[in-house]
């Protein structure tokens, strides 16, 4: 049972981390919490499922298309709604945080409502990437589809982390996250970096939504759950820390499962919060938090 729960927790945690990575990147670069992050997940899930079921697009095309849909949404949202958060960097930024909270919150409601109007409130299960008999791993049955989804998630998760650390693209993102005005002085186009980060975050969340659509059928409100997990994870791992998102995600997945079998399943969603409180008592900036929050 213990090994089953560890394995299953790590699998779940990988998908949590995929969501949280984008959220923490957005926070790092823009110092805002994107309250519509779950809806990127939802859009990705629906794009994948609807392209496949309604338009007959093959899976190999539907999955990348879902990622592109999420990234495109992220791009548009950043350009249309997030710009004012940092436009005129020299000018005073009164009401900036309030604006960001309200506008992303309203966006979240808008996207849920729009999707409910367009596709209805129904859930639609996504197709499996590959079919086949399940494999027995540590006492739990894992389908080939789950393994494939996990592989893709890990690839994108580690790939993004690698690029953040070892590519110019990633260094520019980290530069903006560490010191926005210095980055501008150093010739980094901070507006472009912000847009890219939003698009990347949108794409990663959409990927999570598409990969999980077979296990968790997309419905317009499906994004609330992964979003809440992501908020816990990014505080746990340290706001703005990509590595923290990875470790925090895996940790949350495992802790939830252990709590569910050794304490009680009914409180499953609270174990993460308890863990969060404990970690914040010991490390107020989260596991890998290094930046002070701007006042």
């Amino acid at each position, binding site marked *: *049972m213990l090994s*089953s*729960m560890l394995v*299953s927790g790590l699998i*779940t945690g990988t998908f949590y981390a995929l969501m949280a990575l984008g959220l923490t990147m957005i926070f790092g670069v823009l110092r805002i919490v994107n309250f519509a992050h779950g809806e990127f997940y939802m859009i990705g899930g629906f794009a994948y499922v609807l392209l496949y079921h309604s338009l007959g697009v093959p899976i190999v095309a539907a999955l990348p298309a879902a990622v592109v849909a999420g990234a495109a949404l992220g791009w548009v949202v950043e350009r*249309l*709604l997030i710009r*004012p958060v940092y*436009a*005129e960097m020299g*000018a005073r930024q*009164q*009401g900036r945080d309030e*604006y960001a909270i*309200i*506008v992303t919150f*309203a*966006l979240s*409601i*808008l996207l*849920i*409502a*729009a999707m*409910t*109007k367009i596709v*209805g*409130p*129904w*859930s*639609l*299960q996504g197709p499996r990437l590959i079919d086949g008999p*399940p494999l027995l791993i540590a*006492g*739990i*049955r894992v*389908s080939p589809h789950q393994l494939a989804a996990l592989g893709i998630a890990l690839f994108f998760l580690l790939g993004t982390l690698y690029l953040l650390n070892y590519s110019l693209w990633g260094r520019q993102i980290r530069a903006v996250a560490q010191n926005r005005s210095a980055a501008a002085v150093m010739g980094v186009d901070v507006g472009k970096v912000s847009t890219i980060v939003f698009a990347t975050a949108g794409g990663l969340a959409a990927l999570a939504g598409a990969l999980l659509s077979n*296990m*968790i*059928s997309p*419905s*317009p*409100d*499906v994004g*609330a*759950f*992964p979003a809440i997990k992501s908020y816990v994870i990014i505080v746990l791992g340290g706001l703005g820390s990509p590595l923290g998102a990875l470790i925090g995600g895996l940790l949350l997945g495992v802790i939830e*499962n252990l709590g*569910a*079998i050794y304490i009680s*399943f*009914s409180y*499953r*969603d609270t174990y993460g919060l308890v863990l969060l409180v404990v970690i914040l008592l010991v490390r107020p900036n989260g596991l890998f938090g290094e930046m002070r929050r701007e006042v």
Partner: protein
Amino acid sequence: MLSRLSRLKRLAFTSAMALAIFANAPNGAHSQETFDIGVSTILTPPGSVIQGIQVRQALELIADWQNEQGGVLGKKIKLVVADDQGTTEGGRTVAERLITRDKVSVITGQASSNVVLASLEVAKKYGVPVVNVNGWASGIRTAGVPQVFSPGPYTTRVITATVDTLIALGSKKVFGAFDNTDAGFSLEKEMSKQLKERAPQIQYKSVILDRAAKDYLPVVLQIQAEKPDVVVSELIAPAGYILMNQLYDQGVAPTKDTMFFEMGGMTDNPDFWKNIRGAGKGALAFGHYHPKFDLPAIGVEFRKRFVERYKVEPGRLSFQAADALFVILDAAKRANSTESAALTEALAKTDYLGTRGQITFDKTPGPTFNQWVEVPYAIFQFTAVDQKLDDTTLLKQSNGPLDLKGIVAP
């Protein structure tokens, strides 16, 4: 200054768009020419919107249908629809607003127990009758509010039916899964009680699950370790879909050793087979409607009109909603009034042939107060993936006895 202005504009735009999509045609002032009926149901999450839609479709169909025939007492029926989101706060504020602002004289449409429970006090305070559609929890009846009527499913009946089935199956060990809602807690309590009293030979364990959770694997493994011969689930969609799929994927149920019994009434959701594949084959289900029911003429007509209008079979929630509204219209005719007090009085004396049978309300205080005690139900089994309700094996007809002869091992 420039950036502030543009921020405000963007904010206003986003919020306005969200509101515009959400808002349902605002209702005008109260008019003497119409019979204004408040509809409180789930149009947006966190409640089950699937249920709200089925309720709303039925109510709108009947309102239009009756208005074609001249309405009631010479007045057109006007539905004032409001979104309670399936939440307790939503239920209370919507009921309050429908009564005080929209001046409705009766409310219906509630699709979840917590919403009905929240409206009890409001109904009592203003003396406005509430004919709920889908409030299962016992507390709704035991509160004894004279204005609140329940022509839908209720805990004791659902559990009686479930325990009947478990006994007939010769079950030895049962595992029950319930969600953390008023209905879930009420059902779990009744289940333990009835099994203890009526079937002490059955070993019983249960778990309360968070319906917002998306992964039930730890519980599935726990059930696997218990090796029950029946798993009973009350979880409604979408949580119920996830649990069913995980039970199936892990090879727990339905299998030849372990039956799966769905008592939450989600198997006639239009999206059931879009989310359930192999997990549905062999599953036993409890429902408040089945296409093979012997329906009275009005039920046959309702079903026909529903399929014509919405191109889909009505589910049990649509039938429940239809009966709730028909009962209100009948009471208005008998009372020759659309005023709250007169309606309440007439509702109590209901003896009306609805879409699925003869509806009366019990006067005995307790878990059946103001309840249609004989609300019909069916027990049936799916024997194939993508099977239409029509083709499932009916194990109990609306007015017939339970007969498990046709059952097959999964």
